[in-house]
């Protein structure tokens, strides 16, 4: 091949140096949508070298190893994921406590009838709709969990999920507590009020936590947690995460569409079952999607984080964000790996991309 011929010729030539093939890594400021399974593309460029460098290019040392930016720029840091998990768990428990408190303040159905709601005017109640919601929710959570297990950077992604979930439940605590909406429909039977019975209240909290707040498990008896809807939060959040951390090829788009459909039907069924007001669902969707986009845009754009004109860091949780994402320098690429670490087969054979240099070396 002419190139290899050149390579040997040039080394003995005049002061102009030799041409060689060198693989260079480009600075990536914009994230690339790499489909799963492909490596990061490196383009070979031929550059002129200085005279001194020529001597370094002996026959057996003329390719350089480039480490992919996986280990140094995306460290696992499982302890941060643990902290995020504790944060989410804490907020979940606090939510259940708050629901128990708010249940005491819900006005009685006879005193405060359900508020007028546009959706309820048009669509009468369907009894089994809420089970559909909960089944959809459980399917989505399971799908997300399986997908998360197979992600390579599961520590980072898990951290993000727990943090966002915790935040959303925290906001929910605030909105639930400050103003108490009446029950949306006359069919709802609220658990009786336990005015000063703290023992009973604690038992209720435990029951709620163990059942996950789902009516299928029989732990959805308390009222007052209407603004905003926790079910919508889970449905939307799992869908957004599923969509974000999976490839974007055609086959996978069907999967996204399926999950989107699950999520949408789940949300609509909440309203059909008259379990939440429309405004609860609307506000929940809005807050979930905005928080998700906000967090991920901040995380994906390193330039944004360093910029002085970044207004995104005026939120109160910015310091937590910095703590969690300080060492994550690039967007998390969509790569999958087995949950249990197996040795990578391709590490044994790194020379596939360097065939041109390899052949030059052998000649």
């Amino acid at each position: 091949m002419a190139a290899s011929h050149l390579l040997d010729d040039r080394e003995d030539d005049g002061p102009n140096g030799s041409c060689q093939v060198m693989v260079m890594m480009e600075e990536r400021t914009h994230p690339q949508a790499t489909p799963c399974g492909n490596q990061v593309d490196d383009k070979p460029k031929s550059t002129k070298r200085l005279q001194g460098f020529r001597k370094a290019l002996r026959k057996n040392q003329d390719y350089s190893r480039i480490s992919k930016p996986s280990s140094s720029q995306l460290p696992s840091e499982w302890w941060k994921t643990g902290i995020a998990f504790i944060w989410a768990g804490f907020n979940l428990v606090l939510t259940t406590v708050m629901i128990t408190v708010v249940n005491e303040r819900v006005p009685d159905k006879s005193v405060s009838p359900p508020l007028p709601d546009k959706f309820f005017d048009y669509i009468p109640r369907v009894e089994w709709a809420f089970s559909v919601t909960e089944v959809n929710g459980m399917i989505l959570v399971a799908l997300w969990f399986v997908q998360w297990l197979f992600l390579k950077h599961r520590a980072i992604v898990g951290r993000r999920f727990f943090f966002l979930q915790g935040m959303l439940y925290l906001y929910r605590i605030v909105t639930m507590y400050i103003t108490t909406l009446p029950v949306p429909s006359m069919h709802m039977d609220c658990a009786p009020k336990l005015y000063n019975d703290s023992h009973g209240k604690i038992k209720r909290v435990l029951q709620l936590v163990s059942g996950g707040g789902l009516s299928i498990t029989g732990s959805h008896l308390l009222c007052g947690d209407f603004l905003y809807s926790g079910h919508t939060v889970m449905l939307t959040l799992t869908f957004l995460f599923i969509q974000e951390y999976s490839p974007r090829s055609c086959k996978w788009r069907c999967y996204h569409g399926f999950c989107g459909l699950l999520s949408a039907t789940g949300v609509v069924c909440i309203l059909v079952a008259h379990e939440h007001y429309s405004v609860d669902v609307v506000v929940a969707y809005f807050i979930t999607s905005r928080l998700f986009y906000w967090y991920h845009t901040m995380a994906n754009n390193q330039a944004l984080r360093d910029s002085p004109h970044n207004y995104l860091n005026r939120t109160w949780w910015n310091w937590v964000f910095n703590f969690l994402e300080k060492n994550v320098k690039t967007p998390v690429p969509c790569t999958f790996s087995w949950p249990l670490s197996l040795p990578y087969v391709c590490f044994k054979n790194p020379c596939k991309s360097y065939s041109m240099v390899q052949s030059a070396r052998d000649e």
Partner: protein
Amino acid sequence: MKEVRLWTCSDVSDWLTDEGMQEYMDALQNVDGPALLKLSEEDFKASPLSLVTGDSGRQLLERIETLRFTSHMKAHKNNNHEKSHHANGHAGIALANGSVSNGKIPNGIPKNGLHPEPIRILIPSLPEQERTPYPTEWFKTGVAFLYALFCFLTTTVVISVVHERVPPKEESPPLPDKFFDLFDRVEWAFSICEINGMLLVGLWFTQWLLLKHRSIVGRRFFFIVGTLYLYRCVTMYVTTLPVPGMHFKCSPKLFGDWEAQSRRVMKMMAGGGLSITGSHSLCGDYLYSGHTVMLTLTYLFIKEYSPRRFWWYHWICWCLSAIGIFCILLAHDHYTVDVVVAYYMTTRLFWWYHTMANQQALKEISTGNLFSRVWWFGPFQYFESNVRGIVPRNYQLPFLLRTMTSARVKYSKLDSRES
């Protein structure tokens, strides 16, 4: 680098290597500079060149053409220094880096054997408007203003519609609210809120008049305010909250009486929805609070587009805003959740919009830019595509005042030059 005419065979080889055309090196190893410049398509049809070329030498010929050109310019520059007879019309076009400005290179250089035809290079001159990084584009501001007006009108209509659906106080008593449990109602508090609101709007308007880039900033204000009121329409409409306090006197319902309803809408628009002007008699517009939106938004804009040194001014506005919001709750005129949600939406939308506007990378759709998924990304791009960079805080007297006052006194912060 020497002139092409003086190149030796090895120089030619080096050049071929540089250009990435090593395949020609063997065939052209006896070719020196002038011969290289003489290469033409015919040479590529015969061997040995026809054997190594893949595209009949087209690429190489193009490169040689460029080489010819740059070498001509260099020759030109050298000749000009010597004041040779080339001074016939080459109006000093040859610049140090060999680039050409708007001009022609007429005939008359027989020596080098180069291309004798004149080459005209036109530099597209952009209109004045596009070359500044902050073009004024009042048309876009007008569009934003119409959008805001439309949203205000929609809000008023929706309030009027919702008013019909508010359950009467007797049927649906005020909902339990934590703030109301802690603080009793104070009657005159709502007037304070409205006065603060009017003060803030007045201050912001004056400040806006003094800004240099008022069209861009005005556009942003109208767009954000319009969007917030549009969101408000949605939340107000889907679920109707009962009145927060028994003191409310809601106007009677006009079932189906369209004429009376439209008159009510007009009255509300004319009064701006303030109870001071007597146009705040409709109920049902609780989630979320429009007063909070205006108080918060004007404060955010005031702070954003005024100098950092005016910290006392920022503090005053902050106090006005905070006291106003507190007084809404004190007057039991809105639920606490209305105020909290309004504050949240306003601040998030403001920061979101301004972060997007300040970063060029976020103005494009990409996988890393999740901000581009909002529904208003299209209008945002329309408004902010020509704004390159962060709008500086420059001040300038409005047009009328500028023509009236003389420019004898120099204001250091006012921009006196045209740009």
